[in-house]
């Protein structure tokens, strides 16, 4: 089901408000709503679900204007952050809930319901636990039961709020891969909310990045990572450090000193130069090069990273350095910027 969100606004007295968000979600796509807390990503998901009414704007499910349709009639599947499984019901009863509450005329027979529930349990690879209660399950199992429960009503769209937020790192990675496979098998249009950029990049076909109630960029993982549309996107997706720069028409200068750097972005007079650690190389001090003093060198999972104080100010750039060699703390080094982006302040 294609879903179109048009110019949605939602006023709260608190964080999570939306200020004019438009987004096309394609049929069968897996899309991530990515943003820091308070950016409005969960609010947008709840507006699509019908759990919040927008103060302005429209939500279309296909060609149907769903803005005024109550949540019960939208036929959506929603997986809550803490799963919200019904504690007093067995796993099978939880999954059957959406079928049990159908009007009598649409309700499948008891035998059909049982068959459907078993089918869903098989789908989420929990075939034998239908008789158990939610409290007897691990977090990852509860999460999969919640997903099965949401799928039972044959939803037109599957909405997941921080689906892996409450799980530990290892389970999270396994479930992520599993969800991707499930999506490929069932083909449900799926929207999930996350604050974890790695999760969004790995799992989603496209990523929609929200900040302060506005959409910053929508695109594939490659697009948002390699061609960020704003300084916010660049620094939120992937690691980035930055320095203030001026642009004199031909060269970038920092504190009046020109330096050579390859960069993209339009900047009539300057702004900030954003560079990823992998795009900075440490080399000899030379004229026309940025230079700075190494503040510290720390280990990251895959390599090592140096923090370098530039010039006189409190400005620090981060550069990837080799595991076996690298500058020592206090050393004056030159910096080669392979590629950076300039955004206006």
């Amino acid at each position, binding site marked *: 089901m294609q879903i179109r969100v048009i110019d949605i606004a939602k006023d709260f007295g608190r964080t999570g408000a939306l200020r004019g968000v438009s987004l096309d979600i394609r049929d069968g796509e897996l899309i991530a709503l990515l943003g820091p807390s308070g950016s409005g990503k969960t609010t947008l998901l709840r507006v699509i*679900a019908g759990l919040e009414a927008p103060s302005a704007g429209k939500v279309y499910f296909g060609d149907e204007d769903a803005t005024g349709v109550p949540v*019960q009639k939208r036929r959506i599947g929603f997986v*809550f952050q803490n799963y*919200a499984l*019904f*504690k007093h019901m067995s796993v099978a009863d939880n999954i059957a809930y959406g079928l049990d509450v*159908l009007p009598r005329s649409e309700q499948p027979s008891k035998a059909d319901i049982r068959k459907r529930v078993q089918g869903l349990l098989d789908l989420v690879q929990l075939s034998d636990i239908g008789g158990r209660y939610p*409290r007897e399950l691990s977090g990852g199992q509860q999460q999969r039961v919640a997903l099965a*429960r949401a799928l039972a009503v044959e939803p037109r769209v599957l909405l997941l709020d921080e689906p892996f937020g409450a799980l530990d790192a290892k389970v999270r990675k396994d479930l992520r891969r599993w969800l991707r496979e499930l999506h490929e098998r069932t083909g449900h249009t799926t929207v999930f909310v996350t604050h974890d950029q790695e999760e969004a990049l790995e799992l989603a076909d496209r990523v929609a990045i929200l900040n302060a109630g506005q959409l910053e960029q929508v695109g594939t993982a490659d697009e948002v990572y390699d061609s960020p549309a704003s300084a916010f996107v660049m620094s939120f997706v992937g690691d980035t450090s930055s320095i203030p720069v001026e642009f004199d028409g031909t060269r970038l200068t920092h504190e009046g000193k020109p330096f050579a750097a390859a960069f993209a972005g339009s900047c009539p007079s300057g702004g900030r130069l954003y560079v990823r650690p992998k795009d900075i190389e440490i080399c000899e001090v030379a004229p026309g090069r940025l230079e700075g003093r190494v503040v510290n060198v720390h280990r990251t999972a895959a390599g090592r990273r140096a923090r370098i104080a530039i010039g006189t100010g409190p400005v620090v750039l981060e550069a990837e350095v080799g595991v076996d060699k690298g500058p020592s703390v206090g050393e004056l080094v030159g910096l080669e910027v392979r590629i950076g982006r300039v955004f206006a302040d």
Partner: protein
Amino acid sequence: MPEHIRPGGQASAPVTTESAAARTALIALALAFLALFLILPVIVVFSEALRKGVAFYLATFTDPDAQAAIRLTLIVAAIAVPLNMIFGIAASWAIAKFEFPGKSLLITLIDLPFSISPVVSGLIYVLLFGGAQGYFGPWLKAHGVEVIFALPGIVLATIFVTFPFVARELIPLMQEQGNTDEEAALTLGAGGLRVFLTVTLPNIRWGLLYGVLLCNARAMGEFGAVSVVSGHIRGLTNTMPLQVEILYNEYNFAAAFAMASLLTLLALVTLLAKTLLEMHYGEALARPPRM
């Protein structure tokens, strides 16, 4: 391994707890108070009640006035408790799940019956509905409705006094549980009533039962407010606590204590039920809501 970090070693004991003498003294003091002020009176009630033998004890309850008092008490509780249960659920639902102006005022008002003297609660109703001088008294009298010195007045006073029990129990419980279970049910297509019956009610059932038990105990045991509005008409408007007082004032101690023993028994049963519930419901609360 050095002495001071030996796990569970005696070296660490003085850090975490009082000396043995202090502990013994505190426990003994607590037990002595308990025995003197709680256990002894209960024993006295039953021993006084049975002083003239089991036959006399049982005969007390065949007295028509006594039977009328027991009946009236049961009727009052049967009306007041369900009404307060409905009110309690509605109020705690509103407070826990919605934001609205005047919410904190409502929370404060719910507690009012706890902080006001029961006698005053009774007087309020006399002032409102009393025959000659009450605000609505003359009008009610003209329409043949008696409130004060009759069953309606007793029920009203009892409802007022037992108002907070269910709501007080449910508000923190519902606040802690939040809305997500209800929202999940809504997304699965359930209507409002369905959500309440299949999701909300099961989630609060133990707290609700506990609140109803306490409410019931107070409804049956209330003296002050009921005393003011009842008029003490024997066989008509005397509840069990009022009957106890009358018998006592007539120096009919055995009968007074016999009646009192019934009320005490009610208290003990409530306490027992509450303890059993806490064993169940305490565990449910202690269990982390998200695992």
